[in-house]
């Protein structure tokens, strides 16, 4: 019951929100999301970390003719992702307190439905159920970007939707093929993922058109788009830039993880031979993603776009780790998923806080912020350190393990991936320097052009009002964050250090599952613990 409750409680919340008076929606949503988070903490008591099997199983026939069940369960791989989802929802509610001013009812409904779909995706153990949640999660996010987004939101949201849909529909066909394969090999049709693990899918090395390879790529494409991997990443910057802060946070922190989670849940165990054969390709794309994302992030004039491209880079690490196919890489990959959720989520929140006050995301408009908003600066810099993987922050553990794993799997790719460590520092610190240091920028109470104009392609673009001598407006702005925002950031900052200092507290819950995944990769089975 617990897992179903976790999945469907937000739906109930959404219904409640639909009926509440406008005024109390925000506090009520906060309360409900906290309740949801609290409920997810019950998992710590019910989940047995020493077992690699699937736990807290619930199985009810849904479409028995096709072997489709409402089949949910949890293991070490999904455990933290569920907690991450529930953990972020209250933060997003609190973080959107002033960011979302219109249609707050619809917004919170979207948020809760999204939360439900995301948790469903992580808990589903039936391929069709997974697909259903995977697709269903698109809709609230589509609305979130499209309704509350920025100027080019329509373009971005459409791009996001079509890209993701394009990938996942091929996956649907592959899932169907697998279902029929269970019928042939196991006797009964089944769409349950543990049954997929039992399949022996024909594979011929060196041959492009064999069953396993084709199915592998059908799945991999869907997840690669979601991750997103180079070269199917271009929807991400657009979606992130246009999304409202809460949308960006959830998109980056949780939705991208659906892709990487899919690789761990489906691609590696179901297609072990193809995964091994093609690992080089995905590692290569991962490495390209790392470097490419970092390079492109470096020259972005828009803070949000910079963070978005940094996501591409970070997710490149995750992919590199996963396809290193060794315990370091996979563990690091999982850890990096959580890290990215926290640090990029925090970065988007931070950027949102700034944007709320100044309505500009152009780096060139800032400068010297550290002087007027020291607490904000500290938070931003801490998150930056997490993002660039400074030791004792969470980012380091993930990146180190991934690089270690990547290096073991392939010296060349591992070596190139290490370049990302350098470039990561370059783009983040350069941005920090331009935003926080130096002379005050034009939105920070300084003059219009203080030598920053050269950096921004869009300097002054769209901010004519600032150039027309209304500096008073901006110098009067209080750019420092308030108590509510500190409350939003505090848990994230605490987690950054907690995860950086005591990774075992987190990894121990996933260790059994990950060890099992890596050790029995070619003959992966998951016990279903009733």
């Amino acid at each position: 019951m617990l897992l179903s409750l976790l999945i469907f409680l937000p739906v109930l919340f959404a219904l409640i929100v639909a009926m509440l008076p406008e005024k109390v929606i925000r506090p009520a949503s906060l309360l409900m999301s906290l309740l949801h988070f609290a409920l997810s903490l019950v998992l710590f008591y019910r989940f047995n970390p020493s077992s690699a099997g699937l736990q807290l199983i619930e199985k009810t026939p849904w479409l028995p003719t096709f072997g489709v069940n409402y089949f949910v369960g949890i293991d070490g791989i999904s455990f933290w992702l569920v907690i991450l989802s529930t953990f972020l929802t209250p933060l997003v509610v609190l973080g959107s307190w002033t960011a979302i001013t219109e249609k707050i009812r619809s917004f919170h409904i979207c948020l809760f439905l999204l939360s439900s779909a995301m948790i469903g995706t992580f808990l589903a153990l039936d391929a069709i159920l997974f697909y259903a949640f995977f697709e269903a999660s698109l809709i609230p996010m589509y609305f979130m970007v499209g309704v509350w987004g920025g100027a080019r939101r329509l373009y971005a949201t459409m791009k996001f939707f079509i890209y993701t849909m394009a990938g996942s529909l091929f996956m649907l066909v592959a899932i169907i093929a697998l279902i029929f394969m269970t019928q042939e090999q196991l006797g009964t049709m089944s769409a349950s993922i543990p049954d997929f693990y039992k399949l022996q899918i024909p594979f011929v090395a060196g041959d492009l058109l064999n069953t396993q390879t084709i199915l592998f790529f059908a799945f991999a494409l869907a997840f690669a788009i979601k991750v997103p991997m180079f070269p199917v990443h271009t929807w991400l910057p657009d979606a992130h830039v246009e999304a409202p802060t809460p949308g960006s946070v959830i998109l980056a922190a949780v939705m991208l993880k659906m892709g990487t989670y899919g690789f761990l849940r489906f691609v590696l165990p179901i297609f072990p031979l193809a995964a091994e054969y093609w690992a080089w390709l995905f590692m290569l794309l991962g490495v390209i993603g790392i470097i490419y994302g970092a390079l492109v992030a470096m020259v972005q004039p828009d803070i949000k776009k910079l963070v978005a491209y940094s996501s591409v880079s970070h997710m490149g690490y995750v992919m590199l780790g996963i396809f290193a196919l060794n315990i370091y890489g996979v563990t690091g990959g999982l850890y990096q998923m959580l890290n990215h959720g926290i640090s990029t989520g925090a970065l988007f929140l931070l950027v949102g806080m700034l944007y709320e006050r100044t309505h500009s995301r152009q780096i060139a408009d800032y400068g010297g912020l550290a002087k007027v908003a020291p607490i904000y600066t500290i938070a931003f810099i801490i998150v930056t350190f997490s993002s660039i993987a400074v030791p004792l922050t969470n980012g380091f553990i993930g990146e180190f393990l991934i690089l270690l794993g990547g290096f073991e799997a392939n010296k060349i790719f591992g070596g190139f991936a290490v370049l990302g460590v350098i470039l990561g520092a370059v783009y983040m610190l350069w941005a920090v320097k331009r935003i926080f240091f130096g002379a005050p920028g034009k939105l920070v109470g300084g003059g219009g052009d203080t030598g920053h104009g050269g950096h921004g392609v869009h300097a002054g673009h769209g901010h004519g009002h600032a150039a027309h001598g209304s500096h008073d407006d901006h110098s009067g702005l209080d750019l420092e964050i308030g108590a509510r925002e500190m409350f939003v950031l505090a848990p994230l900052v605490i987690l950054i250090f907690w995860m950086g200092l005591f990774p075992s507290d987190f990894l121990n819950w996933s260790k059994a599952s990950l060890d099992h995944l890596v050790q029995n990769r070619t003959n992966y089975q998951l016990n279903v613990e009733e």
Partner: protein
Amino acid sequence: MEIQFGLIDFLLVAPAVALFVMSCVPLLIKVMRGNQEQNTMATLVYAYTGVFAAMGFCLPTIGATRTAFEGALVFDGVSAFATIVILFCTAVALTFARDSQSTNPKQFTETVFLMMNAAVGMLTMVWANDLIIVFVGLELFSLCLYMMIAMSLEEKVSKEAAFKYFILGSFASALMLYGISFIYGTVGSTYLPELLSSTQNLLATNRLFLLGFVLLIVGLLFKAAVFPFHAWAPDVYQGAPTPLTAFMATGVKAATLAFFLRLVASQAFTVERFWPFVDVMQWMIVLTILIGNVGAFRQRSLKRMLAYSSIAHSGYVMIGMIAAGIGGASMLGATGVMFYIVSYAIMTIGAFGVLHMLEPRPDSDLTVEDLRGLAARKPWLALALTVLLLSLTGIPPTVGFFGKFFLFSAAVKQGLIWLAVWGVIGSIISVYYYLRPVVAMYMEEPVIAPAQVNMRPLSYFAVSFLALLVLVFGIASEPLYQVVLASVAKVF
């Protein structure tokens, strides 16, 4: 020849009789009251009585398999299932027709009469066990539709649409009839069981039969709007009054596909001689999917967009038809088709229903821009349309997703993966145009003040109900699937 029909036969055709009788009642009343149009609500109640009575009469026949009137009609799972779908569509379309701006309130009685008789024609077609009956049913509903289209208050394009439909429909009928004549000439009978039993044999040996059979199928493909016999659909759907478009798009297809399924059940597609046609058909399906989706891609008119999309959906459903025909796990294909008929009927009639509710004038042709800001004005309607469009796109957990799931399953199982892939490609294109109205409703502000439309509670209820149904059948797809399975079980 001893004539043997009893009461049971009349009971079996009672749905059609009920429809016919209750269609005549308001007309008679009108005639007797000096050709004065009566209260439309009363007329509608008569019509509902007829439709629900028909449904009531139909219910006992579920599960039975028998023929009536000397084997002229057949009542089995397929016919019962299609009957219910058609009656359901009729009821909804009647509701819309009353509320529509383009229905002439002075001629509502006639509209009801024609619509119900069109339903009779459709029922006749799905029950038909003889090619003559098929033709009669087909012509019956076609003629009714031609007239109804022309009766629209909108005077310009509706006449054009009616005439186009008429000419092209007659042309197709003639081709079909020509085919029937060849079949008759080779089989020596128009009796369907006889035809079906000899199909395999004759296809392999007789070219004339082959010709006839293909022409028969062409006639059906025309009604189902499959490339290259699709060209009428966008024009007619756009020109016809929206409630009628909804009816045409769903009822006609249900009837046609149900009969098509009967033909396919003969396992004609498994005959080696016929394989070239199956190959051609696959290409036609691909082109149908492509042209439907591509045509809808840049349409401004929503009705036309939905018309093209219905062509695309015909393509999808034809995938199932092929899968049902080529032997092996044909059951999957048949159930896929039947399931898709329902799911398509629900979501399409719902989508057209929402459109008709938003039309302020008889001649309004809604564009995507007209939907701007609808979410703020009419949140429930916008939500309903969103759900329906998402279902058309095939997003879980709507019924549209499962419809596609079953069709693609059939395709994969039957080794028609490339058709499934084309279906996927089509679906990807469709995301764009299905979501554009959603974008307009939720994410854009109206540029000019939208025309006020008054909401009719019945249509409102119907649309909401359909949207709900889309979700309910999506989540509870198994029971529906079981019904579908039972309905085709004995035919295949």
